């Protein structure tokens, strides 16, 4: 087979052959000589062109970019990968029906392998999605070493798989209870131990080769966001059945339709992604999303995606090693987290001049996350809607110096948060003024007023006269200790004794899921860029799941239920604001900070912009030509 780019010679039955057969007899000899000369010249030209092409390509080294993970990957099966870094690799190898515009901010949903955004009917309960034809899984022995087209049946299979109990997907909550008829299949699988993939489910229907219809049990306007989540990336049943491991997961043999395929893999050490030769034709064509994007767009527009041939990812847990390797040019990207940040970023949040002089760039934004200290709603002394309890929680909230957490503990790499929906997420309200701010004086007044009297030793008591002690739980690591100290400092200022509960993360998680932790700082990173993903954290029925403080405020819950039936828009935003005020009034928690993501990029990388939701964007960048 000729290499791409070589000129193919005319074959029997081609137009050149036809021309020869039509030539008149008297001119046949002369024309034959002329034709022979032309064929010879054409052959020579073809050989020269092939040689030049081969030489040029042989001389052009592959474009390689090098990234680093601070935590080891777990594996690359979309619904089973349970860490952010594995999700980055999954995103590079697999496709989802929908994805996000690379540059648009806030994040904007666009078709992935779907032909267009879904047709929504029955008030957000029925979604009809058409797949773009010509999307192929990379060639694999399971397909006879050929590529295989993605079909609607693959979508149905992939979505069913997320709910297979045997797979114990950490992302099953995204679709649990959503599709009509799926609960019965899942229940049957729990009983028999075998998931019936062949069983037809009305909620997940492959209408034809390229059309999928999803019927939901309830209105959900956020479904397209969920379909963009990497846990719902599309897999081929043959691959899973051939390479599946004992528990049904396929962590080590990913075969997807995405821009890259897995090359070399030294577990917990090095992951190499190679350009997928079977990837469809995708051209880089994004509009600027923010000021400063114009140069990036000019560099990249019109290039084929992916522009690079190879992505090398190293796993390196140590800050110093990552930092030195980046400075030495062994890495092209580096996220400057907490203790590392002051090495590269000044107090004003800008890149240090010596790094800027080397052409290194800083991409900085506030993460789509919230952090909050909660107090257990089910604790009879500090939880609930009693006025004394509300006053106590408000006082505790006002004693917490979130600005100090951002400034001191997180080295200035965070900002104080006021609204439960962070920046970059639909529903965020810029400039929101919370009524719960750091104010120890007001906190003291509130406690005095509600009968939390100070004893002779200066410590306050419960209104019944017993010693007032609030337990705060944290991890026994540096950050945990620092947060504990800051909390204690605040409590001391209002005369409230704090008891420490230090435990390892799995234990804290266990107690939290059982609503047995009195207080802790929790964090939530967006699964999808919609306010619902954050407001659900405080919805009563989500206690023992995502509602870490087990909050249950009836008015809040009623409003939340209303918002789930509404599409995003001003009307829903008004309800969100009302809910935010309720949270401030009842104070089941205190919002603390949102961290900055500081991504450093080497000068040789073109087209890079960190996306707030996508876990990786290697397919959208290029390497600058040498000497540029």
């Amino acid at each position: 087979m000729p290499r791409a780019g070589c000129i193919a010679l005319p074959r029997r039955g081609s137009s050149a052959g036809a021309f020869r057969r039509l030539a008149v007899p008297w001119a046949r000899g002369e024309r034959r000589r002329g034709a022979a000369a032309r064929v010879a010249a054409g052959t020579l030209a073809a050989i020269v062109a092939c040689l030049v092409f081969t030489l040029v390509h042989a001389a052009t080294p592959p474009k390689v970019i090098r990234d680093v993970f601070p935590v080891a990957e777990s594996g690359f099966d979309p619904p089973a990968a349970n860490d952010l870094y594995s999700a980055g690799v999954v995103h590079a190898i697999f496709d989802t029906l929908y994805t996000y515009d690379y540059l648009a901010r806030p994040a904007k949903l666009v078709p992935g392998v779907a032909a267009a955004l879904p047709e929504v009917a029955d008030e957000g309960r029925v979604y009809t999605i058409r797949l773009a034809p010509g999307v192929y899984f990379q060639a694999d022995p399971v397909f006879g070493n050929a590529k295989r087209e993605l079909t609607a049946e693959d979508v149905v299979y992939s979505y069913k798989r997320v709910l297979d109990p045997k797979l114990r997907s950490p992302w099953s909550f995204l679709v649990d209870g959503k599709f009509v008829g799926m609960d019965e299949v899942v229940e049957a699988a729990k009983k028999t131990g075998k998931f019936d993939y062949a069983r037809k489910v009305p909620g997940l229907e492959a209408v034809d080769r390229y059309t999928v219809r999803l019927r939901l049990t309830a209105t959900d306007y956020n479904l397209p966001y969920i379909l963009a989540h990497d846990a719902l990336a599309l897999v081929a049943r043959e691959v899973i059945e051939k390479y599946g491991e004992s528990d049904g997961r396929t962590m080590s043999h990913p075969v997807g339709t995405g821009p890259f395929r897995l090359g070399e893999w030294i577990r917990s050490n090095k992951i190499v992604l190679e350009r997928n030769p079977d990837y469809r034709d995708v051209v880089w064509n994004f509009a600027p999303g923010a000021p400063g994007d114009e140069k990036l767009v000019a560099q990249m527009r019109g290039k084929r995606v992916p522009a690079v041939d190879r992505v090398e990812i190293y796993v390196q847990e140590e800050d110093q090693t990552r930092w030195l390797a980046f400075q030495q040019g062994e890495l092209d990207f580096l996220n400057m987290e907490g203790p590392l940040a002051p090495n590269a970023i000044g107090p004003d949040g800008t890149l240090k001049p010596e790094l800027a002089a080397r052409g290194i760039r800083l991409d900085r934004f506030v993460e789509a996350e919230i952090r909050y200290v909660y107090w257990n709603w089910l604790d009879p002394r500090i939880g609930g809607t009693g006025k004394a309890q509300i006053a106590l929680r408000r006082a505790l909230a006002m004693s917490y110096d979130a600005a100090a957490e951002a400034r001191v503990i997180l080295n200035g790499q965070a900002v104080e948060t006021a609204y439960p929906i962070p920046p970059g997420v639909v529903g965020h309200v810029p400039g929101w003024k919370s009524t719960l701010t750091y104010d120890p004086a007001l906190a003291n007044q509130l406690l005095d007023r509600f009968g939390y009297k100070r004893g002779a030793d200066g410590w306050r008591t419960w209104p019944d006269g017993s010693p007032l002690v609030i337990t705060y739980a944290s991890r026994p690591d540096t950050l945990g200790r620092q947060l504990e100290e800051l909390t204690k400092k605040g409590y001391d200022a209002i005369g409230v004794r704090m008891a420490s509960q230090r435990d390892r993360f799995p234990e804290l998680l266990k107690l939290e899921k059982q609503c047995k932790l009195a207080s802790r700082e929790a964090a939530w990173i967006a699964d999808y860029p919609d306010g619902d993903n954050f407001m659900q954290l405080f919805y009563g029925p989500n206690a023992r799941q995502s509602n870490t403080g087990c909050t249950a405020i009836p008015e809040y819950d009623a409003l939340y239920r209303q918002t789930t039936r509404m599409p995003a828009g001003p009307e829903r935003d008004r309800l969100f604001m009302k809910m935010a005020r309720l949270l401030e009034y009842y104070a089941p928690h205190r919002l603390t900070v949102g961290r900055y993501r500081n991504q450093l990029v080497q000068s040789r990388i073109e087209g890079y912009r960190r996306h707030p939701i996508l876990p990786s964007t290697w397919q959208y960048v290029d390497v600058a030509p040498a000497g540029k």
Partner: protein
Amino acid sequence: MWAYVVRRLWQMIPTLLGVVLLVFVLFNLFGGDPAYVLAGKISNPEQIDNIRRQLGVDQPYWVQLGIFLKQIVTADFGASWSTNEPVSHILATRLGPSLTLLVPLLIIETLVAVGLALAVAYVRGSLTDRAVMVVCTVGLSISILVYIIVFQYVFAYKLGWFPVQGWGDSFWTNLVRYASLPILIGLVVSIAPNLRLFRTFVLDEINQDYVRTARAKGVSENRIMWVHVLRNASIPIITHVMAALPGLLIGAFLLERFFSIPGIGREVILAVERSDFPVIKALTVYVAVATMVVNLLADLMYKAVDPRVQLE
């Protein structure tokens, strides 16, 4: 001798059972419940139960202990809870990088330390001896972490003599390019204590009557030191070196972590961070078995080195 070997092998069984019991109790007391971490961000009690059932941690303790014992007998520890990678594959693939780093380190460190120990013992009490001992004491007092940070910064980053980190798929590339700096750091850290220790072993022998007799007979100093003294000092040296051998199976945690070497040491830390009990179990058992086997080999080597030793 064979009766001795068989008896020692029998004695390994109760020792191993003790190790198994200790690991099992410690993990169940302090290991935490992995189901809550594996369940992800949002999970309900039913899903947690499902995970616990699949991992087998919902079984009574005596059943779990029985499964553990069966795994030891069959040498099949299943798969990692977090990555699903078979534990046997983890051990097989991580051992190579650890050995690439630690075998040369152990050989060079032993040869250099023995050579230097003989030299400084020979000039005992001299300025050179005292200077070497002071340097060793200072070297001993500094944490390996400091050596790693400083050497990586100076030799890899500032001078560019070595890569900051990395690992490839060629043995020679790994040994020469990537393992050189970690080996150098390992040498700097380990030579000082070994040198001090081996020097005392040599000094104990230098003052013996047989050395005086050899000198009286006109034997050369080289022969006295390298043949007579070294042979007699080798029993405690062998004990020390053999005791270090099981350490090769555990790897060098910090060196592997800082220099991105995909060895066993790094895997141990990962397994502990992830509460990955199958990996922890397998590594503990293998290290315990290796320690016992190496101790037996050391005893047999005493006999080979010094025929006066009786195996009882």
